[in-house]
């Protein structure tokens, strides 16, 4: 039945309560009732209608089966259409949603891409930063190691300083340090260091003792030498004394001789005096010096030419030696062993010659007193006396120099002495014999004093 209620627009079916107004319009009872509560009119024609004026109407349905009823079918169709529409709407909504979601998805994908790229960038940065961190960690570890090393070194420095104090410092300082230091290890180190230092000190002590002994022995040796030198000095002094006495004796003798000669001169006052004076003059070594000086080259020649002359040989040799003084000295420096022997020999010769000379002088005096004398007798005596002094000096000086004095000093002195002899012999021919002797003695003394000084120096 294709009839519906205009209020609710539902189709009527067999089960529905259908009411009709006086004007003949049909409605569902609840629909009409709810409207009549508001307005007492017919919804369709506005005719006056009340609850009492309406009445129910009944339809005779041909087919009571609800399913085949037109209204129900139409209602169902409506419902289904509605549902279909709703579903369509849903589909549309979902489609929209899908499209929006797709858009969103695309956007999100893009975002993901960007995020991934940024993530990659961050990862790379993270990796680099991690590397940096590891690098810095290693660095820090190194630095920590270094700091530890520094601390260690500082400790060692401190220990060393303390050890230095322990070695060099005073006892109070060391005590203070030990009180402050509580570490056993460092104390052990100090102990070890001190022990080491002690060992070193002992070694040094031993060395020092050794050197002390050495120096002591040297000192004793020097003392011995000093003793020896003193002894030699005494000897030389004694010799000097001896020489002095001998020279004094000679002096006295010569004085006596001079006085004798004076007496003779006063006694005679004759022409003989000239001859005697001449003789004296000839006897004096001063005159003689002239002759050998001139005859030195001759003598050398003679020595070569005439070697075999038994009596004259010794004086010539002496002359030769006196003349070749420098050479002789030089030779002596080189070979010191031979020299003393010669010196001794010479001295012995000298002494012997001296005695001879004295004797001869005496004899000469006697001869002179008689007035007859040969030149040959006079000739050797002064010659022997002069060189003998020189040789004697030489020997003395040599012996001394040989022991202690440096060669340069001795050489210089010897040279001086020899020069003096030369000068004396060369220049002072006019001096009297007395003066000459005095001069010689002075020189000898001086030389001795010098030699003594040099020894002590």
């Amino acid at each position, binding site marked *: 039945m294709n009839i519906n209620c*205009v*209020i*609710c*627009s*539902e189709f009527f079916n067999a089960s529905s309560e259908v009411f009709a107004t006086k004007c003949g319009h049909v409605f569902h009872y609840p*629909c009409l009732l*709810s*409207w009549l509560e*508001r*307005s007492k*009119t017919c*919804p*369709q024609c*506005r005719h006056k209608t009340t609850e009492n004026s309406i009445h129910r109407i009944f339809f005779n349905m041909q087919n009571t089966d609800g399913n085949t009823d037109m209204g129900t079918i139409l209602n169902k169709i*409506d*419902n289904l*259409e*509605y549902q279909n*529409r709703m579903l369509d709407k849903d589909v549309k909504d979902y489609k929209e949603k899908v499209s929006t979601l797709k858009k969103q998805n695309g956007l999100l994908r893009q975002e993901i891409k960007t995020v991934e790229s940024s993530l990659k960038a961050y990862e790379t940065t993270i990796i680099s930063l991690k590397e940096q961190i590891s690098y810095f960690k290693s660095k820090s570890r190194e630095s920590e190691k270094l700091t530890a090393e520094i601390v260690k070194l500082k400790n060692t420095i401190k220990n060393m300083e303390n050890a230095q104090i322990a070695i060099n410092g005073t006892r109070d300082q060391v005590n203070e340090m030990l009180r402050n230091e509580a570490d056993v290890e460092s104390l052990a180190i100090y102990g070890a260091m001190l022990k080491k230092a002690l060992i070193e000190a002992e070694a040094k002590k031993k060395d020092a003792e050794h050197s002390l002994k050495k120096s002591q022995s040297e000192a004793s040796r020097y003392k011995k030498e000093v003793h020896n030198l003193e002894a030699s000095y005494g000897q030389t002094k004694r010799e000097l004394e001896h020489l002095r006495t001998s020279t004094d004796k000679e002096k006295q003798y010569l004085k006596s001789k001079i006085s004798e000669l004076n007496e003779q001169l006063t006694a005679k006052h004759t022409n003989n005096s000239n001859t005697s004076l001449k003789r004296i003059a000839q006897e004096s070594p001063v005159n003689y010096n002239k002759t050998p000086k001139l005859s030195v080259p001759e003598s050398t020649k003679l020595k070569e030419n005439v070697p075999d002359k038994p009596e004259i040989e010794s004086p010539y040799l002496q002359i030769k030696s006196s003349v070749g003084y420098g050479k002789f000295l030089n030779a002596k420096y080189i070979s010191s062993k031979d020299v003393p022997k010669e010196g001794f020999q010479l001295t012995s010769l000298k002494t012997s010659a001296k005695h001879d000379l004295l004797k001869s002088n005496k004899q000469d005096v006697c001869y002179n007193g008689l007035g007859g004398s040969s030149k040959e007798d006079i000739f050797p005596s002064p010659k022997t006396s002069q060189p003998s002094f020189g040789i004697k000096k030489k020997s003395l000086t040599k012996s001394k120099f040989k022991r202690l004095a440096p060669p340069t000093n001795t050489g210089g002195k010897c040279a001086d002495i020899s020069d003096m002899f030369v000068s004396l012999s060369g220049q002072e021919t006019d001096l009297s014999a007395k003066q000459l002797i005095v001069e010689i003695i002075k020189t000898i003394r001086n030389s001795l004093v010098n030699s003594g000084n040099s020894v002590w120096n």
Partner: protein
Amino acid sequence: MAGLSPSERRLQKELMSLVKEPPPGVSVDPDIAERNLLQGAAGTLYEGERFQLQFKFSNKYPFDSPEVTFVGQNIPIHPHVYSNGHICLSILTDDWSPALSVQSVCLSIMSMLSSCKEKQRPPDNAFYVKTCNKNPKKTKWWYHDDSV
């Protein structure tokens, strides 16, 4: 349509009929809102113009009349239409009947617009617009023109 109230069921049916078989000059955009109806007016003075109507239904519909106003940029200049969109029409208030529907209301408004002879606002437009309630149903209308 189970689970829906009678008013909803009816509105659903009305919408479906409007969408399926709209009256001439009336179209419904179901996507915008089920309560919003578009009315393309084809008539004498308002030919070529398009107006938009807004229907607001209470849950007592169809026993209670819907709240119908013109909305949008183009509000028709009509002696019974105020510039705020309110419409002076008796069936929307006092003369409402549950037998009336959205379709019938639309047809009534279209006929009202078509019967207009002069485009002008109501004489008390300014005053009413200032003082009126938002809801046109709360206005006590004095229907004087029976020609519509």
